[in-house]
């Protein structure tokens, strides 16, 4: 026997879970866990994008035509802007939370966004931006539904297809469009759920000393969902 730290029974501290030695270890583990999960997500979307890339390569003309005809680049661009704004507010929220952790009493300078007391408003703005994104996305889906380009019983009527383009390839493009944006939107909805939980806890002040952990981890997730959209936007909307 060499030596031993504190007895096992004393590990039930308020600031970290029983399996960890201290709050720093818990924080590192949580961050690494989220990064590992994001690696999984990269491959999850990556498999879809690989399939999309191959069909886009083979049926390029049809994909370009469908992208022009049925997607509105300006709505996609606005949505990209909305998501980038939300990334900024998330970054500021994380900053605010961390600030609070390490220097709780520091509020002498004139208040600037990113100060601890802005945490709740920043989280709320982020969620609002997320909702705006989903509303615009929903509008796009509705327009597509009116144009009968949503996969289903009356999926796409091919009377006006220009020469050199096969209707089935247009359907293929729309299918991938709905799968990719649909799964992305699902991730957004999960993100909104996480942020509601964060906001509620931040509002009640029940995070104690691990507050920045939760905000930071959820922030990583939100940024990742934003990242996915950064790639989806040019790949789907801007085919020239």
């Amino acid at each position, binding site marked *: 026997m060499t030596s031993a730290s504190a007895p096992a029974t004393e590990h039930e501290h308020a600031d970290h879970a029983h399996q960890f030695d201290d709050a720093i270890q818990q924080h590192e583990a949580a*961050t*690494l866990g989220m*990064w*590992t999960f*994001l*690696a*999984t997500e*990269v*491959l999850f979307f*990556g*498999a879809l994008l*690989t399939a999309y*890339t*191959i069909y886009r*390569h*083979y*049926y390029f003309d049809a994909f370009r035509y469908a992208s022009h005809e049925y997607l509105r*680049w300006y709505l996609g*661009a606005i949505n*990209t*802007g909305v998501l*980038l*704004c939300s*990334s*900024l507010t*998330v*970054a*500021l929220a994380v*900053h605010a939370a961390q600030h609070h952790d390490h220097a709780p009493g520091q509020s002498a300078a004139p208040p*600037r*966004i*990113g100060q601890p007391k802005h945490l709740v408003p920043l989280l709320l703005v982020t969620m609002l931006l997320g909702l705006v994104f989903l509303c615009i996305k929903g509008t796009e889906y509705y327009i597509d539904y009116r144009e009968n380009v949503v996969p289903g019983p009356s999926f796409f009527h091919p009377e006006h297809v220009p020469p050199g383009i*096969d209707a*089935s*390839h247009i359907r*293929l493009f729309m299918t991938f469009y709905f799968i990719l944006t649909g799964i992305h939107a699902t991730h957004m909805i999960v993100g909104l759920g996480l942020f509601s939980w964060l906001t509620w806890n931040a509002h009640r002040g029940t995070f104690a000393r691990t507050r920045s952990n939760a905000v930071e981890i959820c*922030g*990583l997730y939100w*940024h*990742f969902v*934003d*990242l996915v959209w*950064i*790639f989806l*936007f*040019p*790949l789907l909307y*801007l*085919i*020239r």
Partner: protein
Amino acid sequence: MQTRTYYIIFAWLMGLLIATVAASFLNLDRFFPGLNAAVALCIAAAKAMLVVLFFMHVRHAGKLTWIFASAAFVWLGIMLVLTLNDYLTRHPVDQPIQLSVQTK
């Protein structure tokens, strides 16, 4: 990190967003086929790098985070390269690509 950095990065991101939309209206493919897509993807990658490095704090993170963040993209690269390696080398007669027709 100061909050000022976040605003600067945000300004860059919005600038790149305008750039990518603008680039899509230029017909770059006449110079080199696929140039439009390449430019769009490069801008997207630049935006992604900014988000990852600054918003997600990888710039100041330890080696481990770097490895985890890049491993996923290495694996994605494997999948893309080896799959395309098949599709781009199928000889037209020897290994036809799939045709999109009703075969009943």
